[in-house]
């Protein structure tokens, strides 16, 4: 007698299953790479030359050599021009290349280089560089490029850095929900913090 209900029941079932599936699907979605736009910088800084593997003619410089604030502060900041000059004044080979010329122009003018922010989170979010580096580099002893890579992607293959992760909240949370070993030695694991005020300000 209730045959006319069949269709609607079917729809209902479909909707529910689809919904919950979509919800589950949100997990893999968040770890997927999501390429940000190309950003032009005042100086096209070749990360690959500096940090890249020797095989590709890179210098294999530790990220934290230049981005020294990241392990000491919430903000990673940008290395002072001083830093660049420190090495480059003694590297005659590339002294005359256009990029280095430009660098020295800024330096002599004592003008800060107007870099563009590539990984620019919303203003109400606080990403704590120090905490993450402490956790994964110093405590777990993971290789530095891997640790930075979690969020910044494989920078050593780029020239100008480019965003490769979505950096959406779901994406952050998907990692905070995983159990991570507390340090290199012990098997004890812990979750990332999940209360709102850890990241929202």
């Amino acid at each position, binding site marked *: 007698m209730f045959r006319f209900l069949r269709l609607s029941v079917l729809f209902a079932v479909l909707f529910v299953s689809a919904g919950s599936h979509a919800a589950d699907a949100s997990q893999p979605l968040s770890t997927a790479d999501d390429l940000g736009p190309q950003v032009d910088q005042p100086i096209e800084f070749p990360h690959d030359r500096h940090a890249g593997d020797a095989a590709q003619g890179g210098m294999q410089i530790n990220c934290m050599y230049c981005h020294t604030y990241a392990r000491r502060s919430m903000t990673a900041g940008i290395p002072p021009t001083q830093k660049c000059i420190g090495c480059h004044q003694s590297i005659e080979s590339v002294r005359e290349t256009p990029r280095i010329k430009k660098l020295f122009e800024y330096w002599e003018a004592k003008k*800060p280089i107007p870099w563009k922010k590539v*990984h620019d989170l919303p203003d109400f979010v606080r990403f704590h560089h120090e905490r993450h580096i402490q956790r994964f580099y110093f405590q777990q002893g993971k290789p530095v490029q891997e640790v930075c890579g979690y969020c910044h992607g494989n920078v050593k293959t780029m020239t100008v850095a480019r965003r490769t992760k979505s950096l959406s909240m779901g994406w952050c949370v998907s990692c905070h929900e995983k159990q991570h070993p507390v340090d290199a030695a012990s098997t004890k694991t812990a979750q990332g913090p999940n209360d709102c005020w850890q990241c929202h300000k």
Partner: protein
Amino acid sequence: MMENGFNRRDFLKVLGWGGTAVALSGCGNTSVEDGRETVNSYVEAADYVIPGIGVYFNSTCAQCDAGCSIMGKVREGRVLKLEGNPDSAINRGKTCGLGQAGVQHHYNPDRVREPLQRKGEIGVTITWEKAYELIAEKLKDVSGEEIAFLSGGVSGHLKVLLDNYLASFGCRNHFVYEALAPAVVRAANKKSYGVEMPRYNINKAKVVLSFGADFLGAWVSPVHFSQQYAQFRKGVDGERGVLIQIEPKMTLTGANADRWIPVRPGTEGVLALGIINALGTAGGDIAALVKDYDKVRVSKETGVPPGHIDKIAALLKLRSPSLVLAGSAAEGYAHGSQNAAAINLLNHVLGNVGKTVEAAAEVPFPQMAPARGNTAALKALNDGLAAGKYKVLFNYAANPIFTAPGGMKFKDNWAKADFKVVFAHYMDETALQADLVLPLDSALEDWGTHVPEYMADGAQINIQQPLMERLHANTRGMGDILLALIKQRRPEDYKSYEDYYGYLRAAMLQNKAALGGGGMDDDTFWSETLSKGIVKLAGAATTAVHSKAGATDLTLPAATQDAQYPLQLIPAVNVSLRDGRHANLPWLQESPDPLTTIVWDSWVEIHPKKALEMDITEGDIIEVTSRTGSVKAQAYLFPGIHPDAISIPLGQGHEALGRYAKGYGVNPFQILDAVFDKETGELAMHETRVKISKTGQRVIVVKDESAAGAKQIRKKIAGRMSTDNVDLSKEV
């Protein structure tokens, strides 16, 4: 706190970030952005400067004369917040609202940014060179006697430089003017203790009997006294201190008293003698003096019930040492010094002198000692101007046209000087009347040394140093300006200093040994000094306080009645606005008055009983008329005021001083009669009598407290218990 020393050169390189990092963050940008925002990196960075981490630099608060030491949190080249410096004996790491608002003084959008010269009604922007030339030219053919320099309280090297400058053309007309300085009390203290400003140990007293001294609000050194007050409440050896406040209008201190006693305005001295009489411990000429001040008469004159007088006397006998303070409410009369003297006498009778009243330490450099402001100076200047004595007039750190009592007609006399130079942060009422306005650095951009007017503990010199580079390229520090000016007169003596900083450094290094830097090399000493922000000195009190009472010939007139002007006007000193110099700081405008919670406006406090008689309700606009003039303001019914008095807070009613001050409230200074204390010639602030009348208009009073007013209906919100059943000594 920064560990390793730093010098000006390093410091100035704290640039970048500032420009962009200040972009308003908000809920607006809700998505990840790439390549929109620019981040300026440092060119070179001192290694203690890390983006995202604040560095603290020590300096000195310039919001009032108390001279609290502060430390400013500097981040990415911007000073963000001021905190108290824990090492200072004055404020021990604490600040008041004024101090907190110091940053708004610095970032204020209404600051003067260029030197301005008057052309008719408008000010024209000129260069500094031009300005200096102008001054030189004006000073060329006037004698030193025809030059007057009006300033607020100054001390330290700025004072030295100023004196030298004035001396350089033989000018002795330096008028140091503070509208709200406790000058009468100082004079009285000089007489009865032998020192102008002794050290009061509220924390050592078991009873504090204060005659209108608002030491928690706006009197002398509030932050310091507040801390002593806290200890005093916890109690000396477990015995909680008792605060008795005697005043016609409740101040913040009165609101915190265990017993607040309204006294008929002007009869404080009588009451003091009455208490001495009730104590009955005094002998000799004092006993003679007070013998006919018996309870009956005193209570008749003062309106204080005899029972209270007995209780007070009993308590004072019981608990010793105590401390008796004479404050602005007591001193503001034609017989103010008499009042103050009578009140100080109590301290002698109770034997507090030497215990809770001690001689304060002094700085061993008299030329740096603070030039304390008073109102007699203004009177002198005013008379001089009226007589046309002065051709050139300088004004620094004072706003006389706003704060001079209407009775003085100061504005008219001011115009009599041909050339008026005003060193100003803002275009205030006085600057508007100037011929030349020279823009000053804010206190957070400038160098300086200060000697506090009230020495809390040991003697100390406070260092003031820039917390960030100039906000506006064309402002100058007062020191730099004076240096430039003095170079006009005595180039050879001063050519070695290229700026005030250089002068300061040299001057300090000269007396390195005396400043406790013996054996250190110059740079270490200097950077030490700067990073500490305070130079503590071994300078002890040169003069001890008199143990025995001074003059006891006191003539205390009974309160007079005036049929035409039946009410006494009490110009109240608002905790945050003071004499009005802070009215342009929005935080202070919006922080409610502690007792009425009114914001952004003036009001007339009137006792509900009186209001009932005159059928005045809250919000009625009433006209207050004195012999000098009249103002209109909203009425506020306030139980903490003597029915024979009304009160209007000072500080509002600006006609200039920028967007946050202009056009809010009324300025009671305008209706103050020019009555002066017979002995010291100080302005008698409380001597003005007024009558009030309803205008018929009505407004809703803008205040924080609700329609329910300040009543705790049924629920216990703010708890209170009596000392009988509490033992503070065991508490944490």
